[in-house]
């Protein structure tokens, strides 16, 4: 099976600053891949190129064999902050994902919005504005919006980075369940090892800038697809986490 998202000799520089060194990497469909690496190494840049928000300096990125040239709704973005529009209610934020679609009727849009409100436990907050709900709720709104838009690739840039530990844990569990149930391909950027191991089917570890792949870890082979919270307390999880930490210390050139 060929990769769904393919980095093909992709490299990126901003003026004289080399941010991503020539990289080739294929990501499978319906898997959750975590990009892990020291901050400032180029993870966001890699993800923005998949989103079509930045263009590679050389090489290209292919989605389903097709070259990515501009953003479109097949790839939805979830950011750490400013993830939802403060002037729209929760319901209308989710519906925003479909706002510019002419291929489905208003009734279908309303139906889909309702569906995702329920799925994310947001129905009671449908009429609330983002400033009135918790940070965790706001990130749920953002994820619901990308799903409502019909994206099958989710690009998540440290989406839980600003949340408290408990909320963060809960959202990680939910995200994993949704990924399996909705069959999405997710690229998840984080610099939190614990989060990476818990969520990932696969972890791609990048070096300090300019980013290059220094390790590629098949987490699914060791932890399986289902990730209940208790898995964090297993020995397998613990060992894997330590291995990743060790790699970060010795392979990325990160100063920790």
């Amino acid at each position: 099976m060929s990769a769904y998202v393919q980095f093909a000799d992709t490299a990126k520089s901003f003026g004289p600053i080399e941010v991503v060194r020539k990289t080739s990497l294929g990501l499978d469909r319906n898997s959750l891949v975590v990009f892990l690496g020291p901050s400032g190494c180029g993870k966001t840049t890699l993800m923005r190129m998949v989103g079509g928000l930045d263009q590679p300096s050389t090489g290209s990125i292919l989605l389903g064999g097709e070259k990515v040239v501009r953003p479109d709704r097949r790839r939805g973005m979830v950011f750490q902050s400013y993830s939802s529009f403060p002037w729209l209610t929760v319901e209308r934020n989710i519906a925003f994902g479909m706002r510019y679609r002419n291929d489905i009727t208003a009734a279908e849009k309303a139906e889909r919005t309702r569906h995702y409100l329920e799925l994310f436990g947001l129905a009671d907050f449908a009429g609330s504005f983002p400033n009135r709900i918790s940070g965790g709720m706001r990130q749920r709104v953002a994820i619901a919006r990308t799903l409502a838009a019909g994206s099958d690739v989710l690009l998540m840039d440290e989406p839980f980075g600003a949340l408290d530990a408990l909320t963060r844990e809960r959202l990680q569990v939910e995200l994993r369940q949704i990924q399996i149930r909705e069959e999405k391909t997710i690229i998840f950027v984080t610099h939190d090892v614990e989060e990476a191991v818990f969520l990932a089917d696969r972890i791609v570890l990048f070096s300090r800038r300019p980013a290059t792949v220094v390790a590629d870890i098949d987490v699914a082979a060791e932890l399986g697809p289902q990730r209940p919270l208790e898995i964090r307390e297993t020995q397998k999880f613990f060992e894997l986490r330590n291995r990743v930490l060790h790699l970060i210390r010795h392979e990325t050139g990160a100063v920790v």
Partner: protein
Amino acid sequence: MVELAVGVIAAALVVAAWEGAARSGMIAPQFLPSPSRVLTALWTMLTQQNLIWHVAVSTARVWVAFLLAAALAIPIGIVMSSYRIVGAALEPMIDFIRYLPVPALVPLSIIWFGVGEETKVFLLWLGTFFQLVLLVADDMRRVPQEFVEVARTVGANSRQVMTDVALRSMGPTLIDNLRITLGWCWTYLIIAEIVAADSGIGYVIWTARRFVKTPEVMAGVVVIGLIGLVTDQLLRLLHRRLFRYL
């Protein structure tokens, strides 16, 4: 509510002290007429000297100039921050003009436009446009990149990004900046009406001054203050109505 009461009581105390000082006879009435004399003057001006008409003329001048300034400053400010080259080209000039005090431009404006309405509107426009355009450019720059990118990802074109996201995101600060520059516009109005006018509230004050009618001068000042206060409060109310989500 408590704050409002405290504010009203404090203002009442100041007025009472003023009345007391004026009545004590220690200060000549042509310097400090009592509040009651000012009120009487105000009443006479309203009933016999067409004050309402002068106020209407001034208000119209302010709003015409202000709306002209806003109508140009909003699109130009947005373009300035959307296209770096435009910003780089315009910003130094605008910055220079912005620091010219409006009174310094009165003679030039009279040479160009004479002493008619054009001069007044031009001066007010001058005083607000250059300030506002930079404020708008700044508001636009502050629109989070994430909002724009989310919109582009779900298929918004440039125009939709502008109307559905950038303008919505700027809304609260934009309305605030409009409110503040409208206040400045009133300041320039008085200058414009003092130097070249035969109508308007500035003209009324200046004429009264020539005959040392201090109560009338003060009544005129009070009226300007009241208009400012009422306009400002109305715009604040509008702000709260429009941006309930804040």
